[in-house]
């Protein structure tokens, strides 16, 4: 397998490695994969689809056949089989029976496969997020994170100085985006840097792959600036053995590489994978004064992690940290609040990580839906097996008569079930591998990048899923097996005898009812996602994402020449403005539709606050920002922002104006931020800058030269915006190569991106709902049709005696309706409960919202009625003569 192969080829390779038995696999897997790749390369898109379908069947068959046939050649005799003769016979009988009923086999296997694939996927994710210990770390059981907000570095040092007895050590870490230049690299690129305390690696017990890791010696004044590379970065560089001692440049500052972190160690955060690590003490050399000093007690930015001493318990440790925090608060009143309510969170796994929390609702939804689908599939399989067992009553009775024991009959049903399981499981594995591949490529809002977590399909999970599947089918095969045995005991053929529902039909009605309920719930889930998307898209964002593009640029490489950086950005903007089809171009620190925000406290000239200063969101902007982002101005004139760099003016938004100047226009008023007095020159309309789920906050826009930030976003508007995205990297190189482009996206793409969870959930649930609905309709139809077929003679007699055809049909509907109605009612109830849960996670869905549940219940009821009516009508159209003649 090579990372350059297409996904299908890589998946095929994975499947070959996982499914085929040794020694066949060892000898031929590589060749098979190469052949598949060659076949893939030689075909067009449609033929590739056919190739994949064939390859799945081929793999499945190869895996089974190689296990059963063992070491046989083709030339006469010598074959050893795994099982005894009777078993092989039964197996053949079952395979033949299944092949004779392809529709039955396909429906049953596909439903099991989808359910299984879903469950396996969700378990793989959940296992990784909640159960896998952090990789590359020694004794992760002893690790705890301090659950506080971000801490000022001096507070961490105070805590280290207190050295609580329950801990063997306390370290701290923080991710920062930096521009990295490798030796001789063509272009700087943005990467994540882990900024850590000197004892970080020591505390975690991480062993270097090359050279050494960071240690407290690196934190001493006068020490060299040292960096540790991640294993992934080192591999990307070609795994040079002599990497230690070389230089890399971080934000333009040279760092000496001292070593490489071990493979698999990616820090303690879920979605971020640092490429380099440096010590806190070297951060100033990287930030160049654009963040507060690391020793400033007012700047909380770093997270603490600690290792419990052997035998220490969490409660005592928590008490000790609290006691230490009181002492720290007494010595440094400004840090009094930092460690208030501190708790200790075991961090053996990443379950407590914020990244996991982002994914939890999605996992919950996916897990629930796939379990329901599996449930529906099980009901379906039970239903189908039951129907077959009853239909085969005579065949089975014949077998008994010929001397087959009851055990053998039961075994036949069991083998059929087992074959379905195998078929379903293998296809399910493929589905799950594909699903994981798709999920890995996905980026979700909140910096979630599942691919970064490195989840792969896992044998343990497959086994777990397989066990669930076997259990499901075993349970669902139980009823048909019992029926088969009962039938074999001499009641075969009794179906034709009397009126009323034949044996097995009652159970089948219940099963169909279960499927109806599941169908309602899954359809309601789909509708909820749809409802959320519709209401999100109908929200007025307050600005126009169409024809807009956002380009992130980082100016860290300008180091302390930020004046030059601003000039370079201006030149770039000028160049963009001159591109065809561009109406406006501007920059802002917080771009539209991002999650970033920056808050500052402020004063209004001539006003005093009784308590504390109020806080507003501030957004540093420049150029014709309001035109570029499409935010209309309500009052005043913003041209003062466009022109000069240091104009002490701000534009406030409507929310801020209403809250602080409820009776007058704020234009002309003065506000003070960071000791700088600025004049309000205009009022802008409210905009939901962070997307539909957020309400507009009071916001002040201004140039704010007092707090320079190295990363900005360019906001570009006009029909040519998308074209600019494609050429912007070239423009940047021409303007000043020290500018680094971090991210580019069109406005509509950003909107889409915010809706990714809904779209993903909607698509998946639609898939499950479609499956469950088709299962439930075939289930309902099958039960009614079977009941009608079994009672044809009775209907014939009644019609001969003068019964009205419509009445006969209606009676059949009525008898079968009860289970459907109960199913719909139960499903609707569950859907209402689902809505209540979903309301917490889905934008635009209220807890009391009955729309989705009602709609789902109504449509499933309607469809089920149709599925009942069609076969029921046949009951009224029976030709009495032909039925009675057939007797």
């Amino acid at each position, binding site marked *: 397998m090579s990372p350059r192969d297409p996904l299908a080829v890589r998946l095929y390779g994975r499947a070959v490695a996982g499914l085929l038995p040794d020694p066949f696999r060892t000898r031929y897997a590589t060749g098979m994969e*190469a*052949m598949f790749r060659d076949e893939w390369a030689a075909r067009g898109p449609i033929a590739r689809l056919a190739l994949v379908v064939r390859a799945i069947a081929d793999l499945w068959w*190869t895996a089974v056949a190689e296990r059963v046939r063992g070491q046989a050649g*083709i030339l006469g005799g010598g074959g050893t089989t795994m099982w005894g003769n009777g078993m092989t016979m039964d197996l053949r009988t079952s395979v033949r029976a299944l092949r004779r009923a392809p529709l039955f086999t396909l429906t049953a296997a596909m439903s099991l496969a989808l359910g299984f694939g879903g469950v396996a996927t969700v378990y793989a994710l959940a296992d990784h997020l909640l159960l896998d210990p952090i990789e590359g770390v020694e004794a992760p059981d002893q690790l705890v994170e301090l659950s506080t907000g971000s801490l000022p570095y001096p507070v961490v040092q105070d805590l280290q100085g207190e050295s609580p007895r329950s801990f063997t050590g306390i370290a701290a870490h923080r991710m920062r985006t930096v521009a990295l230049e490798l030796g001789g690299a063509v272009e700087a690129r943005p990467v994540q840097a882990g900024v850590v305390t000197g004892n970080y690696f020591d505390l975690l017990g991480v062993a270097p792959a090359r050279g050494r890791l960071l240690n407290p010696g690196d934190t001493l004044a006068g020490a060299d600036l040292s960096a540790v590379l991640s294993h992934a970065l080192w591999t990307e560089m070609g795994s040079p053995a002599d990497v230690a001692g070389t230089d890399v440049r971080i934000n333009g500052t040279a760092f000496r590489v001292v070593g490489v972190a071990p493979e698999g160690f990616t820090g303690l955060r879920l979605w971020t994978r640092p490429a380099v690590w440096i010590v806190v003490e070297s951060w100033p050399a990287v930030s160049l004064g654009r963040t507060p000093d690391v020793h400033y007690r007012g700047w909380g930015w770093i997270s603490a992690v600690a290792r419990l001493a052997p035998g220490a318990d969490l409660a005592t440790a928590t008490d000790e940290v609290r006691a230490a925090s009181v002492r720290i608060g007494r010595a440094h009143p400004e840090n009094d609040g930092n460690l208030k309510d501190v708790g200790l969170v075991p961090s053996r796994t990443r379950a407590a990580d914020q990244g996991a929390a982002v994914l939890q609702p999605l996992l919950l939804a996916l897990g629930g839906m796939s379990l329901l689908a599996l449930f529906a599939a099980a009901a379906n399989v039970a239903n189908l097996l039951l129907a077959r067992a009853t239909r085969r009553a005579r065949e089975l009775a014949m077998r008994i008569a010929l001397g087959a024991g009851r055990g053998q009959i039961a075994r036949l049903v069991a083998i059929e079930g087992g074959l379905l399981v195998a078929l379903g499981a293998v296809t399910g594995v493929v589905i799950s591998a594909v699903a994981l591949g798709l999920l890995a490529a996905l980026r979700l809002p909140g910096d979630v990048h599942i691919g970064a977590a490195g989840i792969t399909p896992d044998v343990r999970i497959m086994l777990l899923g397989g066990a669930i599947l076997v259990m499901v089918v075993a349970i669902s095969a139980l009823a048909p097996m019992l029926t088969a045995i009962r039938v074999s005991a001499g009641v075969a053929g009794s179906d034709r005898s009397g009126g009323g529902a034949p044996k097995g039909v009652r159970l089948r009605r219940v099963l169909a009812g279960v499927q109806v309920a599941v169908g309602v719930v899954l359809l309601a889930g789909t509708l909820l996602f749809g409802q959320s998307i519709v209401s999100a898209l109908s929200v007025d964002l307050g600005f126009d994402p169409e024809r807009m593009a956002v380009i992130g640029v980082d100016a860290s490489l300008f180091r302390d020449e930020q004046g030059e950086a601003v000039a370079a950005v201006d030149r770039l903007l000028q160049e963009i403005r001159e591109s065809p089809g561009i109406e406006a171009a501007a920059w802002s620190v917080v771009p539209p539709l991002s999650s970033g925000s920056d808050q500052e406290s402020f004063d209004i000239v001539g006003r005093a606050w009784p308590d504390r200063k109020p806080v507003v969101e501030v957004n540093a902007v420049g150029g014709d920002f309001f035109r570029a982002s499409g935010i209309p101005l309500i009052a005043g004139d913003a041209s003062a922002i466009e022109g000069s760099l240091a104009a002490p003016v701000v534009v406030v938004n409507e929310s801020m104006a209403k809250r602080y100047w409820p009776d007058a226009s704020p234009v002309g008023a003065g506000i003070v931020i960071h000791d700088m007095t600025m004049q309000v020159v205009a009022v802008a309309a409210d905009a939901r800058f962070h997307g539909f789920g957020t309400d507009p906050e009071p916001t002040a826009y201004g140039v704010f030269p007092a707090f320079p930030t190295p990363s900005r976003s360019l906001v570009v508007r006009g029909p040519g915006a998308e074209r600019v995205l494609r050429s912007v990297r070239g423009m940047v190189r021409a303007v000043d190569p020290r500018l680094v482009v971090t991210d580019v996206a069109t406005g509509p793409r950003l909107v889409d991106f915010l809706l990714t969870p809904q779209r993903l959930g909607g698509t998946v649930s639609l898939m499950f709902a479609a499956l469950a609905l088709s299962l439930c309709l075939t289930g309902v139809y099958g039960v009614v049709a079977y009941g009608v077929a079994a009672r044809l003679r009775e209907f014939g007699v009644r019609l001969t005696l003068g019964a009205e055809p419509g009445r006969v049909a209606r009676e059949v509907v009525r008898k079968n309706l009860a289970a459907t109605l109960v199913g719909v009612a139960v499903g609707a109830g569950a859907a209402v409960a689902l809505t209540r849960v979903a309301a917490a996670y889905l934008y635009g869905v209220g807890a009391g919202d009955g729309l989705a549940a009602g709609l789902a219940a109504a449509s499933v009821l309607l469809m089920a009625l149709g599925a009942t009516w069609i076969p029921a009508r046949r009951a009224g159209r029976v030709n009495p003569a032909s039925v009675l003649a057939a007797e």
Partner: protein
Amino acid sequence: MPARDPETVLPLKPKPFLILLVLEEEGPLHGYAINKGMSDRSGGTVRMDPGGLYRLLARLERDGLLRRSARPADETDDRRQYVEITEWGRRVLRAEARRIASLASMRSVRNLARTDR
């Protein structure tokens, strides 16, 4: 095994026969090329999937009819696995060809083949 009389293992099924034929005519080949050779010779009617083909190759190898061979010098892809026909395989192939040829030369067989369906 090579000591056996090739006549005793006949007839060969069509697919093994085609594989041996392709290897005899074209020399050492990898899976995809074998498949292509079979497809070409059969006018597109014989086409195998990787699992089926390699299972057959494995069985032919166990019977000593073919063996793994080194990659040719001009092959840049180190994942392709090459096989070549063995001396025993050649003998079996020839015996099978003779058998088919003698069958095909029977007049009654030719007559049968000429009649429609």
